[in-house]
């Protein structure tokens, strides 16, 4: 495949996964099993790299997808929004095996973007007056009180895109887009699993969602959709 030959960012899955250190904060894309980087998650499970702080919307299902990282005892903590699809999270938390920081989904997405665009913190109305507000700074603008949310920055982001060109520009597929483009901005090392690699210049410059400036490493996924 010509595009692969010309792609300096392309790596094998295990080589890419080898770049992730024990104890890393890792952003992982996906929502309800759509748009999660399946091959990278598999690779991370096989690697056994542990003490990870996983920052993602959910944690898949018990012993499936991201859930497997938990079964494998690779997780030190979770920062995310919705673990009801994987009851093992509440169990591990109750047993004191992991810490969990629950963030409202919109605040989570915005805090990840904030990290990516150099905003250390912002104010939001989501969660005011609820348990989520406990311990958070408040400030009044106009007639309303808002919560201060700090940016959520990571060491590594594992994302899933549909197509990449050889430079690393990305486009996504339908609702598999979700958190991936914001996560691509918010980590020191960004590894993108893609269904397809195309030659440079083949993606429409007006339609590129993630410019290659944000992407460090590409791996080929299974085109699993």
């Amino acid at each position, binding site marked *: 495949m010509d595009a692969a030959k010309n792609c300096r960012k392309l790596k094998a899955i295990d080589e890419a996964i080898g770049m992730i250190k024990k104890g890393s904060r890792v952003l992982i894309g996906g929502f*309800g099993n*759509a748009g999660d980087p399946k091959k990278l998650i598999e690779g991370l499970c096989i690697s056994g790299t542990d003490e990870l702080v996983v920052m993602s919307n959910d944690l898949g299902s018990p012993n499936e997808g991201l859930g497997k990282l938990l079964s494998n005892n690779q997780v030190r903590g979770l920062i995310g929004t919705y673990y*009801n699809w994987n009851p093992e999270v509440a169990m591990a938390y109750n047993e004191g095996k992991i810490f969990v920081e629950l963030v409202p989904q*919109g605040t989570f997405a915005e805090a990840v973007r904030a990290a990516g665009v150099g905003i250390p913190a912002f104010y939001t109305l989501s969660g*005011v007056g*609820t348990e989520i507000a406990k311990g958070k700074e408040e400030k009044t603008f106009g007639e309303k009180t808002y919560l201060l949310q700090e940016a959520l920055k990571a060491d590594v982001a594992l994302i899933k895109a549909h197509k990449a060109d050889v430079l690393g520009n990305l486009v*996504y*597929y339908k*609702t598999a887009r979700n958190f991936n*483009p914001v996560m691509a901005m918010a980590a020191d090392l960004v590894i993108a699993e893609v269904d397809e690699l195309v030659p440079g210049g083949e993606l429409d410059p007006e339609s590129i969602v993630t410019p290659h400036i944000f992407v460090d490493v590409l791996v080929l996924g299974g085109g699993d959709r």
Partner: protein
Amino acid sequence: MKPLAEEVAKKRIAWRIAQEFNKTESPLFINLGVGIPTMVADYITNNQVFLQAENGMLGLGPAASEEKKDRMLINAGRIPITETPGCSFFDSCTSFGMIRGGHVDATVIGAFEVDGEGNVANWIIPNGKQLGVGGAMDLVAGARQVYISMTHCTKQGKPKMIETCTLPITGHGEVDFVVTELAFFRFEKGRLLLEEIAPEVTLEELKTMTLAPFSRSQNFRVMPVPG
């Protein structure tokens, strides 16, 4: 009165809320939660009503048939859905930007409890078995109008509209409408008003099943129900 069968009750609630949206003459953007809220879509007949899903889509079509299912085209309840002409996809951050920025006209959500101050509890029952908040707090705080769709009482007959929420709340004073199989309520300036009552229930009966204090609206009437 005899309680309605659960399926009848749910359909009635979904249908009644849909009638509110069907009245619109200009584009209306709605986010539907899981459960009864999802059923609201089945009764939308006005093509100016557009559905938004917080996982990053505007212009959702109906649930996908078995042969059209695409695991990468789902709503926020993980149900495979379809596209409509003019739909669009965007990232989660933009999606919640729409919501928090007040661009989504209404959200319809379920609830465990609603209280007399317009607080809603719908995200967690503290029993240690679940950990998740999802987009509920963003939707309740951000959408212009919050519709609560729920059966009037629990399966055990306990009222869900109570004086003060006992469960952790999702949002403080954010509820605008509560629609059950028995009644349609509206919050106005922090007061709960009964707008409509179902045909088979008396005001006295409703009061025994509603612990949140309410008064009758000036436009009080019998609730329309699907034919």
